[in-house]
Every structure is written in structure tokens, then in C-alpha cells.
């Protein structure tokens, strides 16, 4: 009853809003015209959204990145369990014959040689078609992710989306094979390092701008480093910052998946 009342109140209030796309509404009278008229001259970036996100509102995006970074670190602190408890049952596959061995607690586990492959007990992904398809598709997904990051100046996209797609390709690898082989490829240490590296790239770009006696995150200060005029330097600065954001988002997505899929144990999982 209260919910219906509050919902009705919200809908009633929304009639007071300015019309959609109204040129006289407060949102499009103060600062939006400046962005629309001057973005191309200021930064030589055709996509206004990217320019606003990474250049005019650079602080905002930096702290968004820090929020994502903090979320990943908090997940590690809260959910990761470092105490290794041996599972009751382990499954191994003898590769030459394809026979599955079931070894209970107390039994002798075969060494992880080229003959034995450990399987998940909870969920056994053994599909040749799935594995081969994913192996074929994953490089294209990753190239698309890099394209989204690098092409954010001209089309929709940017660090967040590209980073998520990049993370999704690694998650796809972990689903199609298993979690242990994904961790063997991209270890926990590496992914945590990448997570901090991304924030470091973003904040470091800002500090680099300060070293050239400009404001924090004023990329036109980087003109001397790139050897271009200040306007293109802002465009290049946006690209560097987007790469930093992409690395953070990719790393945090993979961290979250590793932890959630294995209940913090990084051993067996989805």
C-alpha cells in the first residue's frame, strides 16, 4: 500500500519534469552548450561523451575508478579464504585413456604430470566443441575490447566498456576450461598488480601534468612529451587515462569472478 502510494507520488512528480530534449530545460542551458560547441576545438575528440568523461570531468572518472578498485580490494579482504582445506573427493582424468579416477580423502593423489588432469567435482566441463569454439572466439573478443578502448574517441565506448569486455573474455576462458587453468594463465598476483597499475596510470597522468606546471589532469601539459600541440595532447591524454580505466575494470571483473565462482578458495569452481 505504502509502495503504491510512493510510486504514485513519484509518477505524479515526474509530470513536473521538463520535456524530454527540451532546449530550455535547466540541464541543457548552462554547461551543455559549452561542451557541444567547444569540445572539438578544445580536445579534438568528436565523441563529446568521452571528452566530458575523461577530460572535463576527469576527477569524477578518476574516483569512479578508485571506487571500482576499492570494491575489488574489499572483495578480496572479505571473501578470500587462504586456509586450504583438502576436499573430500578429488577427480582425475587419465589423459591417454580418458578414464576418470575418483580418489577419496586419505588416498594418494597422482602428481600433476602430463598423464593426469584434475577435474572439478562439482561441475565437470568436458566439451571439445565448447573448448575449441571458445579458443577460437576469445582472441576476437579481446581485439574487440582493445578496439572499444582505443576507438572511444570516435564512437561509443571507452575504458569501462572495453575493460568489461576484456574481463568477460577471461571469464569465458575460465568457464569453458576450468578455474584452475584460468588462474594458471592469469594468476591472482598478476591480476591484483594490474588492478593497482590501472589506478596508478590514471593518477600518475594527473601528477605528470602537475610536474609540467599545469593543473591536475590537464592533459595539455603533456604536449612536450608527445611532441604535438596542446589540443592533440588532450586527446592523447584521454587515451592514456582510458587505458588505465580499462585495466582496472578488467582486473576487478576477473578478481570478482575468481572469488565468487570458487567461494574464495580459488580451487574448484564454476
Amino acid at each position, binding site marked *: 500500500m505504502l509502495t503504491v502510494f510512493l510510486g504514485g507520488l513519484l509518477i505524479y512528480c515526474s509530470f513536473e519534469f521538463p520535456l524530454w530534449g527540451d532546449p530550455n530545460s535547466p540541464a541543457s542551458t548552462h554547461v551543455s552548450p559549452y561542451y557541444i560547441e567547444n569540445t572539438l576545438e578544445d580536445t579534438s575528440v568528436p565523441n563529446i*561523451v568521452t571528452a566530458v568523461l575523461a577530460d572535463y570531468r576527469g576527477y569524477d572518472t578518476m574516483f569512479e575508478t578508485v571506487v571500482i578498485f576499492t570494491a575489488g580490494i574489499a572483495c578480496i579482504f572479505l571473501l578470500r579464504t587462504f586456509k586450504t582445506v583438502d576436499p573430500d573427493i578429488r577427480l582425475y582424468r587419465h589423459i591417454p585413456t580418458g578414464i576418470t579416477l575418483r580418489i577419496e580423502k586419505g588416498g594418494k593423489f597422482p602428481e600433476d604430470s602430463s598423464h593426469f588432469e584434475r577435474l572439478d567435482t562439482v561441475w565437470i566441463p568436458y566439451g571439445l566443441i565448447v573448448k575449441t569454439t571458445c579458443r577460437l572466439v576469445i582472441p576476437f573478443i579481446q581485439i574487440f575490447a582493445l578496439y572499444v578502448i582505443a576507438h572511444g574517441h570516435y564512437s561509443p*565506448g571507452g575504458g569501462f*566498456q572495453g575493460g*568489461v569486455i576484456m*574481463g568477460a573474455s577471461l571469464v569465458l576462458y575460465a568457464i569453458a576450461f576450468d578455474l584452475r587453468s584460468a588462474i594458471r594463465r592469469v594468476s591472482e598476483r598478476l591480476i591484483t598488480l594490474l588492478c593497482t597499475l590501472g589506478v596508478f596510470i590514471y593518477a600518475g597522468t594527473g601528477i605528470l601534468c602537475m610536474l609540467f606546471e599545469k593543473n591536475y589532469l590537464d592533459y595539455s601539459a603533456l604536449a612536450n612529451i608527445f611532441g604535438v600541440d596542446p589540443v592533440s595532447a588532450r586527446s592523447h591524454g584521454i587515451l592514456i587515462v582510458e587505458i588505465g580505466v580499462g585495466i582496472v575494470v578488467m582486473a576487478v*571483473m576477473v578478481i570478482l569472478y575468481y572469488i*565468487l565462482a570458487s567461494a574464495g578458495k580459488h580451487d574448484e*569452481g564454476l
Partner: protein
Amino acid sequence: MIWQIELIILAIVIICSISALAVKDLLSAAILFGAYSFMMCLLWAIMGAVDVAFTEASVGAGISTVLFVAAVFQTSRRSKD
């Protein structure tokens, strides 16, 4: 934009959101939430916010559904009590 399509998508958004709250099974709720995100992404695209639509498609419909499913995978199907 054709207003019929907008209306259909808006109806699907509302249906998906209500059923994602109402359904008992957690896995179904996760999948319904993914469908909801994808329909929201179409709505953003219709309203001309292409960047937001892209983010919604990759984050909402893509990775968050996977994370939900991974979290649901750790729960048991039926409650113990």
C-alpha cells in the same frame, strides 16, 4: 522512433523487473535480471544515449549476470528449513 516498439520494450522491462523480484528460484531471478538489463539497454539506445546503452549491455546484461550466476552456483537449490 516508432512509439509502438518503445511501448513494447517498456512493458517487457516492467514485466521482467517485477518477475525478477517475485520469482522464487535464484537462478531464474538472475537470468530475468539479465533480460531486464538488455531491455533497458535497448531503451537507452532508443533515447539516443548510446554510450550508456553500451555500458548497460556490457556491464548489466553481460558480466553482472555471470557474476550473479557464479554466486548462485555456491548456494544450494532448496533451502534447508
